[in-house]
């Protein structure tokens, strides 16, 4: 009898554990309660891409300001940053941990295409919002994932806008390009070619570069021999530095024009030993010393709350990526749900803070095609050459 009781008790205990486990597996903890909303972001805080880690810390500044001002409809934002070391396997692990242990309402930012792609389907399957991936991957917005809202302008759109500027404003006809031999570089190249086709022009030199290459002499000589007056760059910082240094030693002085990925002028100016002065770049955020009232507010808050951080473009980009969720949460009110926030996000029309104007609909989750055009001035200063410009050739808008 005693044995039977024991067996029955064990059976019930096992059933109870299994049913709790299955419940846990079926639904991760809800991402909010009466007092807080839990928001997360992954980003490289260590490892080779650590300089981009400031994006996640920039978002923190915005949430700290929101909390300081009393939160949103009585709820404070609890923000989690996880270091994925720019490693997709690590991203998957930290995101799973946050979702299943902490309970996350939404993710914002998240540096990297491959890292984002590693968790995109997982987040959608768990119905977790993801706003403003910090990469311009087409796959984030096309086809539409109802839970994913992209902010970053596509490299293709930027390439088209920059080329229009070179031809129309700089009056240069011979254009060459150095592009990284991957999706990033090829998207930029596509935009450049699309724009040139409208002028019935073509590139005088089109040169792919592997991100690890340390000698670009033959590529630079090819550009020099092509007679290129302007050279576009869709590169990472080190190949860009090598290109500029090599060009200086062979007497090649074109107008360098680069994607927004190299718009951290203080860094680029420093690591090129000043050669970055005069380089024109795209940008998707206001210049660091902008007098835009919101920029002034954030800059002052950064000085007060995070004096150890450099107020640079990657740091303020963290705010650009996090701004929409704050706005949507404010719109929704006290009766919070994922569906309600999605509805609010889908009704964004020309919403703008310190980044480009964002418009989302149920059928369109690429928020913008606008970039600013800036130039590196003396001492790594920022000079705005052209205000927010959209790409009239963007096919996805039609």
């Amino acid at each position: 009898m005693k044995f039977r009781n024991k067996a029955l008790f064990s059976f019930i205990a096992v059933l109870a554990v299994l049913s709790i486990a299955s419940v846990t597996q079926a639904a991760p903890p809800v991402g909010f309660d009466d007092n807080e909303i839990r928001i997360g972001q992954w980003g490289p805080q260590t490892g080779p891409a650590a300089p981009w880690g400031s994006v996640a810390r920039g978002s923190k500044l915005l949430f700290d300001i929101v909390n300081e001002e009393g939160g949103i409809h009585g709820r404070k934002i609890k923000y989690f940053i996880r270091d994925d070391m720019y490693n997709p396997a690590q991203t998957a692990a930290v995101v799973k941990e946050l979702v299943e242990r902490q309970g996350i309402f939404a993710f914002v930012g998240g540096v990297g295409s491959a890292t984002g792609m590693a968790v995109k389907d997982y987040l959608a399957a768990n119905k977790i919002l993801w706003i403003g991936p910090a990469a311009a991957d087409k796959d984030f917005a096309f086809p539409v994932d109802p839970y994913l809202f992209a902010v970053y302008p596509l490299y293709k759109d930027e390439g088209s806008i920059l080329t229009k500027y070179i031809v129309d404003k700089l009056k240069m006809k011979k254009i060459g390009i150095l592009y990284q031999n991957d999706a990033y570089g090829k998207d930029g190249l596509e935009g450049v070619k699309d724009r040139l086709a409208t002028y019935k022009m073509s590139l005088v030199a089109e040169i792919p570069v592997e991100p690890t290459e340390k000698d670009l002499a033959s590529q630079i000589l090819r550009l020099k021999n092509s007679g290129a007056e302007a050279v576009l760059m869709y590169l990472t910082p080190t190949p860009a530095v090598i290109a500029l240094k090599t060009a200086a030693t062979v007497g090649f002085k074109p107008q360098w024009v680069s994607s927004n990925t190299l718009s951290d002028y203080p860094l680029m100016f420093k690591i090129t030993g000043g050669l970055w002065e005069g380089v024109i770049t795209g940008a998707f955020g206001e210049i660091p010393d902008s007098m835009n009232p919101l920029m002034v507010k954030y800059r002052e808050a950064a000085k007060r709350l995070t004096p150890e951080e450099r107020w640079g473009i990657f740091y303020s980009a963290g705010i650009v990526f996090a701004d929409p969720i704050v706005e949507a949460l404010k719109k929704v009110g006290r009766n919070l749900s994922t569906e309600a926030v999605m509805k609010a996000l889908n009704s964004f029309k020309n919403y703008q803070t310190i980044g480009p104007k964002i418009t989302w609909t149920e059928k369109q989750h690429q928020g913008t095609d606008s970039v600013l055009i800036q130039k590196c001035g003396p001492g790594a200063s920022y000079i705005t050459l052209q205000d927010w410009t959209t790409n009239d050739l963007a096919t996805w808008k039609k």
Partner: protein
Amino acid sequence: MPVGQLLVEGLAIGACYGLFATAVVIIYKTSEVVNFAQGEMAMFSSFVAFHILSVYQLPFWAAFVITMIFSILLGILIEYFFLRPAKHPSILGLIVITLGAEMFLMGLAGWKWGAEQKFFSLPLDPSLTYEPVKGMIINNWAIAVFAVTTCIMLLLYVFFKYTRLGVAMRATQQNKHAAKIMGIRTERVLSFAWGSSSLIGAIAGMFFASRATLDPAFMMEPFLRAFAAAVLGGLMSIPGVIIGGGLMGLIENFFGYYWPQWKPIIAFIVIILVLCLRPSGLFTKHFVKKV
């Protein structure tokens, strides 16, 4: 096609590969170990030079001398603490240890100096160029690489040919046990090899850093190319690796001019061909180890 300019650029980067490959060969010649930490040893020494220049603000030549002393000590210490304690080591085991040392140095540099790229420059004005023949612009960096590589080659030639230590190193490589019996202190020979290899590697590392940027991973690619140049020239021959480096630089630059997308791999294709036809490289004799 700017033949003259491609020649200059190809030979300059090739001399740099060759110089770094010499560092790889010195260790290989004495112990038959391919040191995979070679790139990171050079990276670490370059960071030390950067640290002295930027934090202590010493003049370049003082920083250079201190870095050279540091690099010698680094080589000796890595051999002493990482390789020497290995019990009954096989060549493969030692190579794996050098891989561990590589990761250790990269992690240490990342922790100390961070992952962000740093600016490193030699006291050479990059905009100062010479045009001895029309269409052949030579810059200061290339002149410095040619001069330093030539000096180091001459010193190594004299060292291996005419000094007792140089002969002892050759003897250790040919037969470690026989060398020991003849009274050669092979441990000291190994320390010397690691120290001098680290020194030459550090010089090449500084050349590479001044052409690109300084970060914990910046020597991975140059190491691969230098190693390939060493294989091309023959891992046992120092003049061979210099010629191998030069050939590699020329092939890459001439080929890369017309087909830039193939530039990163063309040299490796050539090396596979060389290894198929002459397994021990272009400038060394094929030898069969007796059992």
